[in-house]
């Protein structure tokens, strides 16, 4: 009987019982004894201005307050792509809520009370809140020193402006492309900033040893090693003197990638008067949006040339991302959207400008999909709108212009193999797209819509992974792979790989949460890269461990390694009739026929770096291989709208992606369902709003609304196609983020079908939909309010 493969097996997720029982320890659960100090930020009350004076004398009088630290005590710029951010405002504040001082105390209450007593005197300056305004000449500059900030080579800020990042695509002849068109149409869509809304707010504890100067950080971090690197660079410490321990995190979605709230805590832990005592910074929910990043607001404008037969001849794309006060991480989603700005279509002549623009608001950065929900939220609405305007079926229009395998993307890279055409047809069939059905609810309006998704891992060309696999003395296996399993199920999939490769039961494989002092390097848990990149490293580590074990057994049993198998933890040589469970010999050494011991603990090593990515040219965006791979997919929704209130109910959502190979079907299904709900939630409810002075109106869940179980679709159907990827551990490619990319656009397209008016501004709240219906009744075709 053929052995059942663990690749593609439906298995139980690891770590779920501990999570359900509440015994798994998160960062905030850790105990540090009475040595622990607590930090709390005092925050700016104005959106823009110079700090004239900070008076914290009253804060120091609060019993328990140990010290107050201000920005100029810790002026280090930290950051991953563009170092425009300090832990606290130094000289100048740039948004309401920016930390201006840090109160450190013996208790959390004292720190909070102290923070309330810090008084700051400002000289107010003119703020700018709107990205379009901020791009204008003579707009007030959020970062007058932009030209002096350090940044990576593939990020291109424009000093002397508010443009933190400008990514360009110049492919073909754009003018000629428009001349060849029979129709040239323009459309635009926009969306406010939104929030990750992870269950666990940020927390970290930092400690510096006064003698060795070594720094230890316990943090709610997605990416222990990148955090280590950025801290080490900022503090000018060697890597081995920074240790990052990342306990399990309660959701990340990009909001805990790179370096987030840690510098604020380090400002206290490194203070000469505090050094040696651990300092804890817990960021309350109400302060999350002003301490770490949100998803950038965006405006997508597309001018499209289309021929009579529906072929796209040219596309001019302008993407404006409102990155708030920092583009430290946010510069890269701007780039990611830019080099994918063709969407899922072949566009022979394309001109794209993707801008990240500073404004005096909390800052934007990584969020599930990383530039692509932003791009496709616009582009898939544009494509749909244009299909209707030229009188073509939206699905036919998409299929006609599909970026088929081998055709060049906007960077010139040939599109790798995929099954998107099949996926589109399947999704359309599953929601019965072409059949107009009466509404289920009396008096409501029904509509169906579809949108396509595409995304490549957005990461530096040399983002690497490594892992070790140690076969323990009883045949169980210890896997060190510094991915953060934040709910996506990485450790379950890794256990499946190890079980498959080593022939041990999955229940006997254990993956540990990241600790840079114990585990080998991995860049970050982002970009849907883990099961691909770390998957390669783990598979190679397994191969290494297995060949070590087989070589020892071959000598021990006096046979060839090829004659030995491992099944269910039993090492067998059918030829010799031998079979035994893996035992202490793998740890202590094998006593060979010559009487001598050989071996010792078996540790397999594996590493991986993408071999051939070339950064796009800074002027044209062209590159023979701009990204490692693309994952494509489509989502369709069948919805109904209550015309009396604007309420939307999603009857059914269908989502399909080309995963290459599904390793962990349960996790893939969960990811698709979760991302679909998250995307629909963003489309229906989510937006971060400010008053006219830049004060946040939606700091917590009272007014920042995400979908509850009462708001999710009645039915979600997911499926995967499997066109293999190469290189890849099993043909699999990233699929974690993709389900978040296009549900909102599909919803908008279905809404248009239902109510006959195109809404150009996300989210589609009940109020906005109601107002649009009223406008439609007046005969309007577009709603911008």
């Amino acid at each position: 009987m053929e052995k059942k493969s663990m690749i593609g097996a439906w298995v139980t997720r690891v770590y779920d019982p501990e999570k359900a029982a509440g015994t798994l320890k998160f960062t905030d659960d850790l105990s540090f004894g009475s040595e622990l100090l607590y930090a709390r930020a005092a925050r700016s009350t104005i959106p823009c201005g110079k700090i004239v004076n900070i008076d914290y004398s009253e804060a120091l009088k609060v019993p328990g307050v140990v010290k107050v630290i201000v920005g100029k005590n810790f002026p280090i710029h930290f950051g991953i792509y563009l170092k425009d951010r300090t832990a606290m405002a130094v000289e100048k504040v740039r948004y309401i809520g920016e930390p201006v001082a840090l109160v450190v105390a013996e208790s959390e209450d004292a720190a909070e009370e102290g923070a309330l007593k810090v008084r700051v005197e400002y000289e107010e300056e003119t703020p700018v809140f709107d990205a379009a305004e901020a791009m204008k000449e003579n707009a007030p500059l959020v970062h007058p020193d932009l030209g002096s900030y350090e940044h990576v080579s593939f990020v291109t800020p424009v000093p002397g402006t508010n443009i933190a990042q400008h990514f360009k695509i110049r492919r073909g002849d754009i003018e000629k492309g428009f001349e060849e068109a029979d129709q040239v149409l323009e459309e635009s869509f926009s969306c406010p900033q939104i929030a990750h809304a992870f269950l666990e707010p940020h927390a970290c504890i930092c400690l510096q040893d006064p003698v060795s100067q070594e720094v230890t950080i316990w943090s709610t971090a997605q990416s222990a090693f990148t955090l280590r690197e950025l801290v080490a660079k900022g503090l000018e410490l060697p890597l081995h003197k920074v240790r990052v321990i990342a306990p399990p995190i309660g959701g990340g979605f990009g909001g805990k990638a790179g370096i987030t709230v840690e510098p604020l805590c380090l400002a206290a832990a490194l203070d000469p008067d505090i050094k040696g005592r651990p300092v804890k910074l817990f960021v309350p929910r109400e302060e999350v949006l002003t301490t770490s990043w949100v998803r950038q607001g965006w405006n997508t404008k597309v001018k499209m040339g289309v021929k009579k037969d529906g072929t796209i001849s040219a596309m001019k794309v302008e993407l404006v991302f409102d990155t708030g006060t920092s583009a430290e991480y946010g510069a890269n989603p701007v780039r990611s959207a830019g080099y994918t700005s063709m969407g899922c279509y072949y566009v022979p002549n394309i001109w794209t400008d993707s801008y990240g623009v500073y404004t005096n608001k909390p800052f934007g950065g990584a969020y599930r999909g990383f530039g692509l929900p932003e791009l496709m939220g616009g582009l898939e609405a544009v494509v749909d709108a244009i299909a209707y305007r030229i009188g073509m079926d939206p699905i036919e229009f998409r299929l006609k212009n599909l970026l088929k395998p081998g055709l060049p993307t906007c960077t010139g890279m040939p599109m790798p193999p995929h099954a998107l055409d099949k996926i589109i047809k399947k999704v359309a069939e599953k929601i019965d797209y072409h059949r107009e059905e009466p509404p289920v609810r009396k008096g409501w309006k029904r509509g169906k819509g579809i949108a396509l998704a595409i995304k490549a891992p957005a990461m530096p060309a040399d983002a690497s992974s490594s892992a070790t696999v140690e076969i323990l003395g009883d045949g169980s296996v210890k896997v060190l792979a510094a991915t953060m399993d934040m709910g996506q199920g990485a450790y379950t999939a890794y256990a499946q790989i190890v079980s498959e490769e080593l022939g041990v039961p999955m229940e006997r494989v254990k993956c540990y949460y990241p600790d840079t002092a114990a585990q080998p390097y991995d860049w970050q848990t982002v970009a849907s890269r883990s099961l691909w990149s770390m998957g390669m490293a783990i598979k190679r580590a397994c191969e290494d461990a297995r060949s070590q074990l087989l070589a020892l057994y071959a000598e021990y049993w006096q046979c060839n390694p090829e004659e030995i198998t491992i099944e269910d933890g039993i090492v067998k040589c059918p030829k010799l009739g031998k079979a035994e469970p893996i035992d202490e010999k793998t740890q202590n050494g094998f006593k060979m026929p010559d009487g001598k011991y050989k071996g010792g603990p078996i540790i397999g090593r594996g590493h991986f770096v993408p071999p051939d990515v070339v950064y796009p040219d800074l002027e044209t965006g062209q590159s023979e291989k701009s990204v490692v791979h693309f994952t494509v997919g489509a989502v369709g929704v069948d919805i109904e709208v209550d015309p009396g209130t604007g309420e939307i109910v999603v009857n059914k959502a269908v989502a399909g992606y080309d995963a290459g190979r599904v390793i962990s079907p349960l996790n893939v299904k969960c990811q698709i369902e979760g991302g679909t709900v998250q995307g629909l939630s963003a489309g229906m409810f989510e937006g971060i709003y400010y008053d006219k002075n830049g004060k946040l109106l939606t700091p917590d869940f009272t007014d920042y609304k995400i979908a509850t179980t009462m708001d999710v679709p009645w039915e979600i159907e997911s499926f995967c196609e499997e066109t293999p990827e190469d290189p890849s551990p099993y043909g699999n490619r990233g699929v974690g983020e993709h389900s978040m990319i296009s549900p909102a656009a599909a919803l908008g397209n279905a809404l248009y079908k239902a109510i006959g008016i195109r809404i150009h501004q996300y989210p589609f709240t009940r109020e906005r939909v109601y107002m649009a219906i009223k406008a439609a009744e007046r005969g309007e075709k577009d709603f911008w309010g």
Partner: protein
Amino acid sequence: MLAFELERPRSLQEAISILEKFGNRAMPKAGGTDLLMWMKDRLVTPEVVVDLSLIPDLAGVNFSKDGLRIGAMATCTEVLESAAVEDHFPALRDACLSHSDWLIRNRATVVGNVCSAVPSGDVMPALYCYDATIRIVGPRGERSIPINKFILGPRKKDMIAGEIVTHVFLPLPEGKSSGCYLKLGRRNALDLAQVGVACVAIDGKNGREYRLAYGAVAPTPVRALEAEKALQGIKAPDDALLEKVSALAKEAVKPIADVRAGVEYRLAMVGELTKRAIDTCVERLKEE
């Protein structure tokens, strides 16, 4: 949250004396689902929090031939699970069911929702329709006050230091009745009302009588008395009358624009939900 002292009196008298002693530095707590949030946001900063949960007199939901008594510690869940509430005060049941979610309803109290006195308080429009009275004890003894006199404005109520609301009382409608509460929020659970409409219809001595009350569209809940008058005696209002009634209802309210909704939408929804609420009540009376 800033530090505070917690007092847990076991009798009304003890609670009153603590509250009187500390004056406006103390605040009573029933479910605490509003109070603790407000403390966290520093909207209120009591030095002493007086937990009422151990006082036996404040517990329970009791029904008699005169009406319904809801004790200060009765949770939304207790109220909505009461058979008497389902039979005689369906608008209140709807209101409790629309409040937050199951977890919070297991803790939040109906009286607490009244005492918070926020314009969007879900249970209040129903209590306005049922002519509820608020029963208070304090250093100067007991008093009783109609709910619309008790609520003075956003987070303002007619109470002095040392006073405690012991219960609300809802007289039994005089005649066969039906009722409903329709809530519009931004999503289907765990939200504050953008507009809340309670409607009660009673077949009394003088024929069919309607009561309409609104939440989240004025500084306090409001009754639409003119709209009620226009409906008086009519068992099957037609579309024209419903249009007129919803126009009158819009005149009775005075919504503001905030991050939750704009004025135009709130007014439109007052109109829409008024029609739906009346329809529902008329249908529910037919069914019985």
